[in-house]
């Protein structure tokens, strides 16, 4: 069902992007997300497109993978484009189809917003495709750690995220088992009225939640038995190492941002 969604999936590899420090990648993507919304010229988007192609070659991710992953986003992009094209009524009328007139500004806005969406999903996908979930949580923990001074529980949040990520495949396996067990006893999740389907869905959710709570209790015992006591005094096996790639990336991204700001209309 979700095999076409690439955001959140990790593809192990040995590319330039795979070897970068996750903190640098997160910072770069956050910066690009902000910059995407500031760009308002064709030249700016052309430069962004060139950057996207360059990053693609640095990622080592197969093209068919990206194409497959971007496909579901296209529906949203097309919808967004038509919403702007229909409802923005500024500038000259470019052409009319029946009662609908398409304005220059509407088409321009539609294309800009669509491009922003595509680029946003593209860069975020490349971040998760080239960074393992545990590296992402480690990076977020370190990035949020200055907030611990203001009582923000950075370590606990990272631990929660890491456990949530670790249990996703387990919960999916469990869901599949429950579906099979319920199907064997006559439940049908794909047929019948909306009401029937909702009822069948409840019979899936209840055991799933019960098992999840039992699992949470067992896990809490297992963590406590191994001396888990929050983040205080804890050491770490995984170290994040900032290298030349990361510094280079930050410098290039900053320069890229400055150029894009100059290209603003």
């Amino acid at each position, binding site marked *: 069902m979700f095999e076409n969604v690439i955001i959140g999936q990790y593809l192990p590899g040995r590319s330039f992007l795979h070897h970068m420090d996750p903190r640098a990648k997160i910072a770069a993507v956050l910066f690009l997300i902000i910059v995407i919304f500031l760009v308002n010229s064709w030249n700016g988007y052309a430069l962004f497109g060139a950057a996207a192609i360059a990053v693609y070659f640095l990622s080592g991710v197969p093209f068919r993978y990206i194409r497959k992953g971007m496909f579901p986003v296209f529906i949203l992009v097309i919808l967004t484009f038509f919403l702007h094209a229909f409802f923005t009524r500024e500038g000259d009328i470019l052409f009319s189809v029946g009662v609908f007139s398409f304005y220059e500004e509407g088409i321009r806005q539609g294309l800009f917003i669509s491009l922003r969406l595509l680029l946003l999903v593209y860069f975020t996908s490349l971040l998760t495709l080239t960074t393992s979930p545990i590296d992402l949580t480690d990076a977020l923990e370190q990035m949020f750690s200055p907030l611990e001074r203001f009582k923000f529980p950075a370590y606990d949040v990272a631990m929660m995220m890491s456990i949530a990520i670790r249990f996703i495949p387990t919960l999916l396996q469990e869901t599949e088992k429950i579906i099979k067990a319920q199907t064997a006893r006559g439940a049908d999740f794909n047929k019948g009225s909306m009401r029937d389907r909702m009822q069948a869905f409840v019979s899936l959710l209840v055991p799933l939640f019960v098992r999840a709570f039992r699992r949470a209790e*067992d896990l809490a015992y*297992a963590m406590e*038995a191994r*001396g888990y006591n929050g983040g205080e005094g*804890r050491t770490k*096996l995984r170290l994040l190492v900032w290298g030349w790639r990361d510094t280079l990336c930050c410098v290039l991204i900053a320069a890229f941002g400055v150029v894009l700001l100059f290209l603003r209309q």
Partner: protein
Amino acid sequence: MAIIELRDLEYQYEESDEKVLKGLNKKIHQGEWLSIIGANGSGKSTLSRLFNGLSQPTGGSVLVLGKKTTEEDSLQMIRREVGMVFQNPEHQFVAPTVRDDIAFGMENAGVPREVMLERIDEVSRWVNIEHILHMEPHRLSGGQKQRAAIAGILALRPQVMVFDESTSMLDPNGRKEILETMNRLCRESGLTIISITHYLEEAFMSDRIWFMKAGRIEKDVTTANIPDQLEWMEAEGMPLPYKYQLYREAKKRRIDIRTLRTMVEGE
């Protein structure tokens, strides 16, 4: 030397009117392998959680290396010294890969990274999981997950390991792997093993057996002479391992073992 001592130990769940453990007084000695058997609800698993302070007694005390589990200052030391392997191999896996999971306890104990790396190497070789260190838990078999859990505890260099029905959810191969590991831990490394189990063939591998019934230790016997113990075990409704069933039946019918062999193998 007693490594764990139970003194008038009692335990009662908040929501219950009855005590689950009723005045236990026992000692567990260093380097021995103790099995705790008994029916469901006899108090075995509750007792296992008291060994490393996961639950606190409601009466009496548990002493680990002379320190009470109720002493807040000693609790971290006690949890390092008394490791626990739980029943469900899936539910005790905290980290996203085997390597990270082995490191979890050491990270909590503040072990320096270099030492962690050495110990991960050492314990993964010991339990034979070097080849799966990079793997995620959902790709492992039950036996591999339990061995990873054992490695995670061994890395903390404990003196005691408690196995709470740790083989009950495994297939025969997984079970065999864990039993072999337990045997090596006790016989080669000198660790004290406490094994909570329903399987008598597992209990017979140990040095001593506690039989629990309704919150009391009804029997405390050594496994030096198993045939002497079979009668009460059978009377308590415990399914004997096949070879002992055969032995009991042959004895009851006064069939000579050699005759039995002839009956099975033919003339």
